[in-house]
């Protein structure tokens, strides 16, 4: 029986090495390309007809667009409209990576912490730059709660800075842990189905329920990633 962790193995498809850096095209890269192609195809085919009364595909594309637009409007406010393309791309990429990974024989890009951390660190650095560019030195007042006595600063400032620095880590960890745990659990129960023979019907039933749960988790984690990006952006734009 294959190890439940075998599914996370990175396989090199086309080896490449530029200046001592391994830039091979792997199965992870392949599924990122597939996700991006699927998103592009979905949106382009969806809006191709530009019908006043949308068809099925156009409805889905518009639904996605309006969902993220509502998310940005509710959580960042009108100032966040400029950042809508970024949040929409982020949401769609994570959503498609998560859901494509649930198809058997595929690879889940977001089950590797380096991928989710790369996404999170881009959000973190971007939000920090937006905050500093908008507020200048006043942005650093962020780390001292207003109204606290000044002699508490040596204790409060390090705690607030740590709390801020933990953002990309927890953001990355949340998506990664959910995806990896879910996929490992699916494989473990799938292994039981074969090993138990006829009695394998019981784990098969659990497997179906788990699969439904994973589908929810895949969509929910894309949503959580997007909404937390929105909240961080809101903080950077408005301070407190």
């Amino acid at each position, binding site marked *: 029986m294959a190890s439940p962790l075998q599914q996370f193995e990175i396989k090199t498809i086309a080896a490449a090495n530029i200046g001592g850096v391994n830039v091979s095209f792997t199965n992870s890269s392949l599924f990122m390309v597939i996700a991006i192609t699927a998103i592009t195809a979905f949106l382009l085919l969806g809006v191709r007809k530009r019908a006043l009364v949308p068809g099925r595909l156009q409805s889905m594309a518009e639904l996605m667009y309006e969902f993220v637009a509502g*998310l940005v409007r*509710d*959580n*960042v*406010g009108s100032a966040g409209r400029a950042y809508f393309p970024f949040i929409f791309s982020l949401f769609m990429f994570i959503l498609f990576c998560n859901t494509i990974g649930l198809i058997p024989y595929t690879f889940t890009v977001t089950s590797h912490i380096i991928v989710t951390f790369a996404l999170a660190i881009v959000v973190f650095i971007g939000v920090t730059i937006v905050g500093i560019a908008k507020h200048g030195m006043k942005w650093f007042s*962020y*780390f*001292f*709660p*207003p*109204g606290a006595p000044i002699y508490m600063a040596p204790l409060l400032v*390090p*705690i*607030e800075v*740590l*709390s*801020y*620095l*933990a*953002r990309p*880590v*927890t953001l990355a*960890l*949340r998506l990664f*842990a*959910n995806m990896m745990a879910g996929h490992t659990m699916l494989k473990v129960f799938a292994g039981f189905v074969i090993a138990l023979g006829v009695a394998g019907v019981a784990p098969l039933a659990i497997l179906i329920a788990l699969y439904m749960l994973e589908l929810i*988790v895949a969509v*929910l984690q894309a*949503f*959580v990633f997007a*909404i*937390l990006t929105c*909240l*961080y952006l*809101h*903080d950077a734009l*408005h*301070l*407190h």
Partner: protein
Amino acid sequence: MTKRGPDEKKPSLSDLRGRIARVREREAAEANRQGRASLSGGGVVLRVGIEMAGTLAVGVAIGWGLDRWLGTGPWLMVVFLFLGGAAGVLNVYRAVSNIGLAPGYRFPGADDKSGDGEGDQKGKSG
């Protein structure tokens, strides 16, 4: 009769417009609250655990790195372990009280994206 007809209609139309506006407002508020609720409802335990452990790990990592750089034995790591723990508790508090993982305390009244009354309600429902 002919004069009273339009007179009766006018107030009823503006009344209807006001009613539609009120319903829309309520729906928007409801949708907003539901969005927040589903975020805090989805896997709250895992979220809180990750928040706590992740922040603590960041604290320990920074302390360890500073120790290696400055050569100050285990002391900075010990200090940052406690600071990381405090920051973790702070993050958990912010996550569950629906203020939204933000550094700095945000008071409901100071929230500019929604009315102060609504902000208050959101804080309590979380």
